[in-house]
Structure formats: C-alpha cells, structure tokens
C-alpha cells in the first residue's frame, strides 16, 4: 500500500485526500487541496512560513505528517476571513505595513490569529513571543506588533458592544 485515505476538516469543510503516509500536511494542503496560501520556507520547522492551526493550535505543517491530521480540524490563511470579511488582524496587517514581500505573512498571520483567539489584550512581549517561531527577513516585527494591537483593540470593542451575530 502506498497511498492512504485521510479525512479531516479544512477551513470548516470536510475533505478527503489520498496521500502517501510520509507526505506532510503542508504538501497535502498545497498539492492535493490547492491551498497554496501556506508556504514552504525551509521544510525543517525553522521558519514558520508553513504555520496553520491544527485543532486550535498553531503548528508547523511541514512537521506534521498528513495522516496525523486524521479527524482533526485545520485552519489555513485561506480560512481566516469569514463570510467574505477579513479578520481584523488581516486588515490591520495591510494598514500597518506589517509585511513587504508577503511570503512569511500567512504563517505569521496564523500565529497572530492564534494569539488573539485566546488573548484579546496581548502585551508587546506576548505578541513577540507568539511570533518567535516565525521568521521575517524583509520587515522585522514592529509592524506586526502594531497590527496585532490594532486588531486586539477592534476585537475588544466588538466584544464589549455585544459583538457577533
């Protein structure tokens, strides 16, 4: 047997892929599912370009074998927006110039999204720690801090006014 069937949830949708067991989740997302938003920067877990949410935690998808995602829920950069609306942190990134070439951005955005899901008022140190596994060569991290602070403020305001639909 070479390929095996793997079922999991990506961005809220059930998928079923056929892949060799030593194929990574990153490869399956990009090649089998055409979700090329998540990037491969090093294939060794050192750069964070491949970060996705796996069962509510950010992980390096190049360091997860596809079958290890069986029955799990995965959220990629393509799944951060909801109902066509960008997540506040996605919008904030554009406004604060938190990226330039953009290659690290999907991974960093998912790390920031993960932080904001559990902490709507992060300190600068907490933000930098959240992206301590994400490597950006173009822009550094000050714009990221500003973007996350801006998004956090927006999220807090929405929560206060009874947010959600």
């Amino acid at each position, binding site marked *: 047997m070479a390929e095996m069937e793997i079922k999991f949830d990506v961005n809220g949708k059930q998928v079923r892929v056929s892949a060799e067991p030593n194929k990574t989740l990153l490869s399956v997302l990009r090649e089998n599912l055409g979700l090329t*938003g998540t990037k491969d920067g090093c294939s*060794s877990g050192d750069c964070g370009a491949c970060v996705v949410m796996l069962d509510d935690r950010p992980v390096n998808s190049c360091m997860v074998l596809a079958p290890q995602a069986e029955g799990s829920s995965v959220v990629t950069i393509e799944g951060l927006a909801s109902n066509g609306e960008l997540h506040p942190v996605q919008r904030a990134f554009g406004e604060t110039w938190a990226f330039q070439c953009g290659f690290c951005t999907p991974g960093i955005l998912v790390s920031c999204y993960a932080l904001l899901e559990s902490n709507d008022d992060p300190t600068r140190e907490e933000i930098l720690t959240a992206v*301590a*596994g994400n490597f950006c060569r173009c822009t550094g991290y000050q714009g990221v801090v500003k973007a996350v602070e801006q998004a956090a403020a927006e999220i807090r305001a929405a929560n206060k006014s009874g947010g959600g639909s």
Partner: protein
Amino acid sequence: MTDSAVVGQWTAAPGAEEIVTGKARYCPDIQLPGLLCGKLLYSPHARARIRKLDVSKAREMPDVYAVITHADIPGENSYLYAEPDQPLLVVDEVRFQGDAVAAVAAKDERTADAALQAIEVEYEVLPGIFDPLEAMKPGADPIVHGEDNIMMSKMYRSGDVEAAIASADVVIENTYRTQWAEHAFLETEGGVGLVGDDGGITVYSSCQAPHRDRMQIARALGIPESMVRVITPYIGGAFGAKDEAHVQIHAGLLAHAAQRPVHLIRDRRESMLTHVKRHPMIVEYTTAATKEGKLLAVKARVIADAGPYTNSTHEVLNKFGEFIGGPYKVENVEVEKIGVRTNNPITGAFRGFGAPQAAFVYESQMDDLARKLGLDPLEIRLLNGVETGTKMYTGVVVREGTAMKASLEKAAEMIGWEKRDQVEREPKKHLRRGFGMATILKGSGLGRGLADHAGVVLEMHRDGSVVLQSAAADMGQGIITVMAQLAAERLGIDMSSVRVVRADTAKSPDAGGSCASRQAMVSGNAVLEAADTIRDTLLSLAAGKTKIEKDRLDLKAGSLTVDGERHEISVKDLAQRASNWGYPLHAESTYQFEYPTDVPEVTYRYSQEVFQFCTQAAQVLVDCETGQVTVERLIAVHDAGKMINPGGVFGQIEGGVAQGIGYALTEELIVDEGHTQNPSLENYVIPMALDIPQLEMEVLEIPEPIAAPLGAKGIAESPIIPTAPAIRNAIYDAIDKPLYELPMTPERVLPVPDVSD
C-alpha cells in the same frame, strides 16, 4: 510635505489583500496542467573533475521527461550577464560545492529525486584552494578558472596619500575581516518554464531583472529574445541574490527539453549551498589625521574572496572603493581592490553591495581614531562630515549634503548621546553598557557612465481607472506601491483606481534590475512623465470645456480643480470625454537618469551622485562572562529625500536593521575547505522577533535635487550598512575592546579586558 493626497500617506500596498488572504502566487504556487517537477544535480565537491557523466538510466526511467547535461544545451552554456563565466551545467570541472551538473524533469518530486539518484557521475576529487591570500600568490595552485586566480586588481588614487601620511600627527592601521553572509529570503529561488504552441518559452521567474533574464534564457536556448517571455509573479524577497540568474534559465531549458511545463524550486539547503553570498573581505586600512581629528588621508587594500566565478565582483569592489572614505571630507585616498578566485562559495550582489563591508571598516576606524586623540566620536564625525557642495575624492560634488550632519545630530539626540555617561553603565557586576554610532553614505543608481533607465506604460480607461505596466520587479521593497502612488497623485485619482500589472516582458518596457536603490528614481520618474502626458490631455479637454486657462487647472482627489478649488467636473468625466472624442489616454515613457555635466572631472568610474545619508546609534549590554551582546536600543535616522510610501520606508529600515544586527553579531556561513557547514536556517543564525529591540526610527525629508520623483530617493540599501559598526563601537565603549572581525560572536567578544588592569 504639502497637500499631497496620496504621496507621503500611509497607504496599503496594492497587493495587500492578496497577501493577507493567501491568494498571492509565488513561483512555487503556480499550478499548471501537466506541471513537471524539475531538479538540479549539484556537485558535492568543492573542486573535482568529472570523469564520467552518464544520464541514460535516468532518461529511461518511467515518468522522467527530460534529463539534460551541458551537451544538451542548445545555445550558450553560461550565465551571468556581465561576464558569463559560470556554466549552467558543468562541462568538465566543478569549481565549488553547488556547481550544477545535470537537470531533470519528472512527474513529481519523488520521481525527480529518483532520477537524480540514477544519474551516474564519477568525480575525481581535486585539491582546491580556499584561502584567498594563498590563492593570489604567484604560482598558486590550482588556478581556479581562466588564467589567474586574481580576477581583478585595480588601484585608485586621488591626491597624494604618502605625503599626507608623512605629514600627519597620527596614523592608524588595522586589518578588518568580514564574513560570508546569506540573504535568507523566505522564498527560495524558483522558476517555472513552459513552452507555447509556436515554440516560444515563457518563464515565471522569482527574479530582480526580468529583461535580463529574458536575454539569458534566449541565449541559453539559442533562440531570439522575441521568442522568450519572462513574468514575475509575487517574489518572496531577494536582497540582491536574485539579481543574477539562478534556476530560471534551467527551468526554461527543461521545459524546452520536456516540451511540458516544469517548475524548478530549490529547497532551503540547496539554496544556501548554491546561490551567491556576500563577499567576505580582508581589508588593511590606514587613516592619517591631524591631532584635531581632521582626516588627511585614507589608504585601503581590500582582498575579496570571490569564489570561482566573476559575477558582480568588479562592481562590488568598485562600490567598496567609492565609499571607503566614508561620508567625510578627505582628498588623499588610495584604494587597491583585489578580487580573488577560490573554490569557496560563489559571491554576488547583496544589499549594500560592498558598502556594509566598507562601513564596518571606516566607521570602526573613526572610533579608534577618536579614542587615540581623546575626541568625542560624535565631534570627530561632525568635524569631518561632508556638506552640500563638498567635492568627494572621487570628484563627485555633493549636491545636497545637509542630511549627513543632520542625521548625526538627530541620532545623537535620540540616543541621548550627551547624557550617556549618566546612564547606569554597570547594572550588574558582569554586565556593561555601551553606546556607539556609525554614519554612512550610499549611492542610488547604477553609476555615471552606465545606462540607467526604465520604461513604463500607462493607460487610463473611460471610467478613470488606470492600468500601469512596468517591468520593475517588486520583491517586497514596494516599487509597485510607489508607482501606483505617483500615478494616482499625478492623475488625481485614488490608489484603488490604479492597477499595476506585475512585471512581464511581453507587456512592459525594460526597467532594468531592481538593485542599487534605483527603482523609485528611474521607474518613479518614468511614471511621472507618462502620467503627465495623460494629465495634459485631460487638462486640455477641461480647459476646452470650461474655457478656463489650463495653467489654473489641476486634478486632485477625483476632481478637476480650478485655482486649487474643487470643480464639479470629475476626472472620470474627463476620461469619458476623452474616450468619446478619440483622445488617447495612453502614454509610454522611458526615463533616462542623467548625471549632471557641469561638474569638475569625476575620476572614479561608475560613481554615483544621489546619496543616501544615514546614521545609526546603538546602546548595547555586554555580558562580560558569556560574551553575549544584547542590543537594547537601536536608533536609525535615514535620509529618504521625501517619502512617497512611509509604510514601505519604515519597513525597509526595520528589515535592513534586523539584517544588520544579524550581520554584526551572529550571521556567518561556516565554510571548511569549500564545504558549508551550516546550510540551514537552524544553524545560520538570524535574529528573530525576541532578538531585535524596538527600533527608534526617524526619516529626514530633505528633497533630492537631481533625479528624484517629487524629491524622493532610494532608501533600500542604507539601513543595513551602519548597523554593524554602530554596534561594534558600542561594544568598544562598553568593554574597552575594539573588534575587527565580523560577526562579533560571543567567542570573539571574549575575553573582556579586566577593568582593573
């Protein structure tokens, strides 16, 4: 800043939404029916002769569509545009670990790997030469390439250095060493080649110079350039390494051989082993000065380890020599520039292009000089700093030099230079705090005597929306945003109405390479000229309709204005009118950077004349027992002329400083007998989020008088240049130990001289 609607405003990049949603496509994301996986077989040896190369087994494998060696290259087997002495695929002698020997295209990655394994290569490993000082000696063996290991040896002299040295009160001599540095852009090198029905080749290339790529791909395939098209998708960083060709030519060759689309993407390890690095340099540097600290002469001898192939060694050493005197008034200069071939990693362009190495030398020496004379490091720099009207030793006259001293004074103010001795210097027994600064200059543009131009095509549609076609490669530095802003500003529309088509040689005129901090200037000016043509048409129509003199009319924020006041006619109305009545709103413009001719004789070849001045100051904390250096504060004061895109400018500064901190303290490719020991992001240590202090940045906006669109000049390179010497000088201040070698790792910082000695 005036009443600009768009220029100078913080505005999101045109591609922002694509990037934050993951829709932006880079070379590895391009999906095509039947796309094959291409790979290169690289030499594991630094020097070897190929005794046997048999690809027949690989070719016979199922699902392998092409296997090529040098014998299968239809055109020229070379790349590099300046001096094409690097083979695309090695013929007989491998000259560095990373020389490519064969290329395959197969159904998928696994099959491509298997095909590489099936290629039979017999190497006769030969002794290589790895020390440039040895390699340059007469009779050195082996000769790496061509006739001589000395690739270039040039001497430049201005004034009378020997006499100046003889008359000086103080003469300081030091030898400096810098390391191989790796660009570590996040998207590795990639190319996607495909063949059209008429035999034309299209290559999606992660590159900095699409037209140059086109020329080289055509040359390798032996076909006319008209049959080649190069498109840049999104590019994930470059910093100079993608200026010269990397895998895109091979991608074209494979697509041609397989007659199917092929993508060739290097993995990180391959990337670190095979693409160009920053030249390591050994610099003997002599400074002569009066006891008041006035510079009399500067003498330098630089030996650069170029690796085996020429690439941009001449140009990098040219820039090194042009700036080795620093932003200072000094007339007597001698610089001997030697580029040496070895079997070490290949070298090439890297942000700064010789200037970071030069700055480490001249700014470290400035502090040594200040110490020797008992002068304040700030004062000695102010004493010697260039001003508007200063004639450099190269003969170039500084047209606008206010920023030099202004940046020094501002940086000093921001770091608290005058009060630095009131800051706690020894917060713990083993910790020492220090302050240092460095001030630099860098030129924008390719240099006097070189053709430096860019073209652009602009078209406005009947609804006032605009398409801008430029071949200026945007690898993150933001030229697309800058061009959109300039077009929007001139045509009185907003950014969202400007669509910039990414570089495509079939659609846009040559813009030259994105390098030398030049695109904002040349492409920016081309955009303004093209926009002015369209603007003129619109205003002529407006004048006709309103019966108001054209010189009272303008376009702003979507409307016609009369004497600055908003009129009811909109830009869209005018565009519609033009379209209805057959007035083309289409312009193509090529901007040629012209150097002023009314200057006294410029003696330095390819000298630049649009200068970026910049000062950085650092506050460091040195752990005297471990040698670790923490950068607590970093002040960066940059001279951008005028900011068109503030977000991009601050991003460039921060990114450049982060690279500078790495260059200063931790980044180093460790090469042993030509073999890189740390070709991974794990062991090539780049500072990450917790390692970089909160930068304090300031941009001085002193308009550039020669070339700049709306006063702006390039700012891309200067941020990386002063960081290492600023940190070095801060370390010197903290522990009383001058360092002369990069990077300043803990092992080089130790031992710390005992204060009680």
